[in-house]
């Protein structure tokens, strides 16, 4: 069991900044994120895109913003549970919460802050009726253990970087690799596209374009897929695995079933006070919340995170006195023993 002061669900910019603000109040944070790396959308969807409305940054790449937020909160030693999705929340008699992930990791804290953005990123599934029947029986939407494909026949569908990269990687592992894409063009790094071309020429990748997987078949497990080339009759290809790689799309997911008030696919919060949800002790900050006049901006998430931390302090330290302090005056004392402070002014008399 991981114990902390604030469990933050979502390691995007709002969640990372909450770690810093909590740290100033001597509160420890642990972040849970379904993605394998921190940064949320900034890292997953658009790391190379510039953002122009972060105060004091005329221009900053989304990926760099993540790096700077990590650097800023580093001395408060946040814990991370990455690549796992927060699945359930349980309120204990003493008012604290246990948040359990889809992999069974348990986290305990008196305060939960949901900073989940648009939700957790789930693979987009192709529109094939019975595909769910073969999930984990030959159909996988992401490749977790490449060794699973050793000496197996694999069909990959998709036209982006992940489809290209895995086709290249598995060409040396699998018995056969078939890459199916709806177009002749691929949207990937030039190197990857050229490498696939090379492997195709060597006969190591069977490239079928423009085509789509139109059916999956098998008895209890996947045995074959139906491939339909544009304007041609469908053909059947025997295979052990089918890996559709059509990108990720965010879904609010299990959080929607936590008994929180949901409106417009977002969590309703009290914006007059502290961004608390209808469940005391559970807050929602950043893009995941909604209130009258809500704007989904990173800078608004920073503000909401700051107010949430003050409320969390009151819950964790009931009755304990505190007033807001300025980092310029007080400096920053890290949990790792480091201290940042303004250099003392030099005072010297003129003789």
């Amino acid at each position, binding site marked *: 069991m991981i114990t902390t002061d604030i469990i933050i669900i979502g390691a995007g910019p709002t969640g990372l900044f909450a770690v810093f603000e909590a740290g100033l109040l001597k509160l420890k944070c642990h972040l849970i994120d379904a993605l394998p790396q921190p940064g949320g959308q900034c890292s997953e*969807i*658009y790391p190379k*895109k510039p953002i122009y409305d972060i105060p004091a940054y005329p221009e900053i790449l989304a990926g760099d913003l993540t790096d700077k937020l990590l650097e800023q909160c580093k001395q408060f030693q946040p814990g991370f549970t990455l690549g796992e999705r927060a699945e359930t929340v349980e309120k204990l008699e003493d008012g604290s919460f246990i948040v359990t992930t889809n992999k069974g990791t348990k986290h305990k804290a008196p305060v939960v802050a949901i900073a989940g953005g*648009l*939700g957790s990123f789930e693979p*987009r599934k*192709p*529109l094939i009726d019975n595909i769910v029947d073969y999930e984990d029986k030959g159909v996988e939407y992401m490749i977790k253990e490449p060794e699973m494909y050793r000496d197996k026949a694999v069909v990959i569908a*998709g*036209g*982006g970087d992940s489809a290209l990269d895995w086709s290249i990687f598995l060409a040396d592992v699998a018995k056969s690799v078939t890459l199916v*894409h*709806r*177009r002749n*063009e691929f*949207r990937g790094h030039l190197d990857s596209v050229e490498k696939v071309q090379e492997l195709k020429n060597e006969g190591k990748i069977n490239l079928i374009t423009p085509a789509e997987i139109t059916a999956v078949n098998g008895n209890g497990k996947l045995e074959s897929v139906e491939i339909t080339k544009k304007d041609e009759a469908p053909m059947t290809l025997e295979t052990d695995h089918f890996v559709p790689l*059509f*990108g990720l*799309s*965010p879904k*609010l997911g299990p959080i929607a079933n936590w008994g929180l008030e949901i409106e*417009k*696919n*977002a969590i309703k919060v009290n914006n007059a006070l502290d961004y608390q949800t209808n469940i005391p002790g559970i807050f929602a900050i950043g893009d995941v919340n*909604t209130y009258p006049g809500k704007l989904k901006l990173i800078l608004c998430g920073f503000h909401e995170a700051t107010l949430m931390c003050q409320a969390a302090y009151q819950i964790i330290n009931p009755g304990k006195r505190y007033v807001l302090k300025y980092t310029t005056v007080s400096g920053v004392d890290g949990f790792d023993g480091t201290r940042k402070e303004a250099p003392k002014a030099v005072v010297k008399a003129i003789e």
Partner: protein
Amino acid sequence: MDDLDVNITIIDRDGVKHNVNAPTDMAMNLMEVIRSYELAPEGTIGICGGMAMCASCQCYILTDTELPEMQDDEEAMLSEAFYVKDNSRLSCQIPITPEIDGLEVEIAPES
């Protein structure tokens, strides 16, 4: 209707037809117009914010209105999207300009 407005017809995901005015002077795109009139629930359209990096704002063009040509990123995104038809476009890539007055579109299903 403001002089700077154009008139657009949008069929929502429930098949309901909406006739809306959209300003041409606010650098808006069609996805944003759909959101501003709340014709699709928040969180189901314009998820990537308008970077042609998801296909949540896909729509079908029902008129022969002349639209700006598709760029590579839009074409690539549509090649990976679902429910794509020959008349599919990403509405975030269609700016609101005087030329598109009278445009009629249907929002594609959520996927």
